[in-house]
């Protein structure tokens, strides 16, 4: 019997697992994919919002501001890329200047620190590449940019290191409330657990329906993005938002922690929870709207387009509550934007709710909540020399675009949650993130993965299960006939 079973290991599930790993509890994490961070966590704007946006009094408002407060320290502890860049919401009209005023007031009530309304002049002084038509901005110095999958992986790894059990490729197929515990039917066998937590992102409503309740209505919404080459990375220094509309925070233009420029998203209805396609009209819309903010964006510098799905529901706020039918199941659902920003606070809040549901917390004396990663390119010349002298694998650069060494890739493969795919290595070590998008290093990463995992190169995947790369070998003699 597990004390707590977390279903889904995106940034919400991982944040909770990390939080709970400090206590003397039997915690299990179930993830249907072959790796963690495989849903919305790997395809979003990568922003820690300041928290002026959600309506005062909502859970979203409270947890966003609290999450933003916690994030810097968390990223420091876990060695995750985080940069407090600050954000600007820009206004193009008198009407929008009024909206900024309202957001400013709302933000003050939410407790967002340091908010300032800027004149057009002040705005352009901060961001010279903004359009001349910008008439003012709301400046939020506490907003930040972050590596979202990096955070999820770091939290999940650290949880595993501290005794949390992770079962990948395990999908929950049924939930039953029994006397004093919850029975989970899964693709890899039944699990008995005192409490279960639904962290399944865009699939959360399916789990609520499995439990037998009404749940809520999911309205998955696709957001399409462009990622631009590093040569465009300093076009803006802050996260640039336009005034929000009814469908979301609109198209943003922002530097990323990896030095690129991210442009997006739009808001298009998704066919289902996994509908991550991009479309020509969608991308065109993103491009057109973004140019209103920053007219000099050069889309030819694009190195990748992608889409993510937001877990939007028919309820305006996050859905954080125990299930009606199955009281041992806690939902952390409807975690749309600012879900990433709120993630640590959602975990903190869930911990409290689970306590109210009957979980007793006793701290483990040997808990180590920190993590360190070697990143070759960020070291000084002397440090590089010392590292390569100790381990020559750090002297072999595999990813040319991002300067990622074999040593770092091997470190990633032997981390607490070993990746089995080229993209799994990419999300951990950064190989393949650059302008050639793995064209040069893909085959070499495949070779290293096969060697370190003692498997055949033909079994190495691009990403999720089914994403095989090799269809056969050449020159296998008569064997092929």
């Amino acid at each position: 019997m597990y004390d707590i079973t977390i279903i889904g290991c995106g940034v919400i599930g991982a944040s909770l697992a990390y939080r709970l790993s400090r206590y003397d509890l039997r915690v299990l994490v179930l993830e249907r994919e072959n790796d963690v961070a495989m849903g919305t966590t790997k395809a979003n704007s990568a922003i820690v919002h300041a928290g002026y946006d959600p309506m005062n009094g909502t859970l979203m408002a409270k947890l966003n501001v609290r999450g933003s407060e916690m994030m810097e320290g968390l990223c420091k502890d876990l060695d995750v890329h985080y940069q407090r860049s600050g954000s600007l919401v820009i206004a193009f009209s008198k009407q929008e200047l009024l909206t900024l005023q309202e957001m400013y007031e709302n933000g003050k009530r939410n407790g967002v620190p340091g908010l300032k309304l800027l004149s057009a002049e002040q705005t352009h002084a901060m961001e010279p590449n903004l359009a001349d038509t910008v008439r003012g901005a709301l400046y939020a110095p506490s907003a930040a940019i972050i590596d979202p999958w990096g955070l999820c992986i770091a939290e999940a790894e650290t949880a595993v290191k501290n005794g949390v059990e992770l079962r990948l490729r395990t999908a929950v197929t049924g939930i039953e409330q029994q006397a004093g515990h919850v029975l989970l039917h899964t693709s890899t066998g039944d699990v008995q657990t005192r409490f279960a937590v639904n962290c399944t992102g865009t699939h959360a409503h399916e789990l609520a329906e499995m439990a037998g309740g009404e749940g809520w209505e999911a309205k998955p919404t696709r957001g399409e993005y462009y990622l631009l080459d590093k040569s465009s990375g300093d076009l803006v220094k802050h996260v640039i938002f336009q005034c929000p509309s009814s469908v979301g925070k609109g198209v943003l233009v922002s530097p990323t922690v990896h030095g690129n420029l991210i442009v997006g998203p739009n808001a298009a209805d998704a066919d289902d929870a996994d509908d991550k396609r991009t479309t020509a009209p969608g991308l065109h819309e993103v491009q057109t709207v973004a140019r209103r903010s920053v007219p000099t964006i050069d889309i030819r510098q694009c190195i990748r387009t992608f889409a993510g799905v937001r877990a939007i529901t028919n309820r305006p706020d996050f859905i954080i509550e125990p299930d009606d039918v199955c009281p041992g199941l806690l939902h952390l659902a409807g975690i749309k934007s600012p879900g990433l920003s709120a993630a640590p606070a959602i975990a903190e809040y869930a911990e409290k709710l689970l306590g109210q549901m009957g979980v007793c917390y006793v701290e483990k004396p040997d808990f180590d909540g920190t993590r360190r990663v070697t990143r070759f390119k960020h070291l000084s010349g002397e440090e590089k020399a010392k590292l390569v002298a100790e381990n020559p694998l750090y002297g072999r650069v595999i990813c040319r675009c991002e300067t990622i060494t074999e040593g770092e890739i091997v470190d990633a493969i032997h981390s607490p949650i070993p990746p089995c795919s080229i993209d799994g290595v990419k999300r951990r070590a950064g190989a393949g993130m650059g302008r050639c998008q793995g064209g040069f290093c893909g085959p070499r990463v495949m070779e290293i993965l096969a060697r370190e995992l003692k498997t055949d190169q033909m079994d190495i995947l691009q990403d999720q299960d089914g994403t095989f790369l090799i269809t056969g070998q050449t020159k296998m003699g008569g064997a092929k006939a």
Partner: protein
Amino acid sequence: MTELICITCPKGCHLTVDEENGFAVTGNACPRGEAYGKNELQHPVRVVTSTVRLTGGAAPRLPVKTDKPLPKDKVFDCMALLDAVVAAAPVKVGDVLLANICGTDVNIVATKNA
């Protein structure tokens, strides 16, 4: 009259071959083009480049080629032969790995040291 594009070199001359007049070639910039034009309509040939399995080398495959052009209709027969060849390092550029293939005087030779 048949129009052809010469493939002997990257220039790609547009040739005209007159079948009625002894396969006379016009449009060629060099004698190789004339030979190509005459050949292509009567008995077309191609150089085949591919790989064979390699043991004991740094890489699992060794690049090879036919040392002379092969009749075009024998290209896939040649590929089938290569399927079964296993070269063992050390190999030098030009080493013959398979001689007189498909009943011709064409050999398969290594194109890289290994």
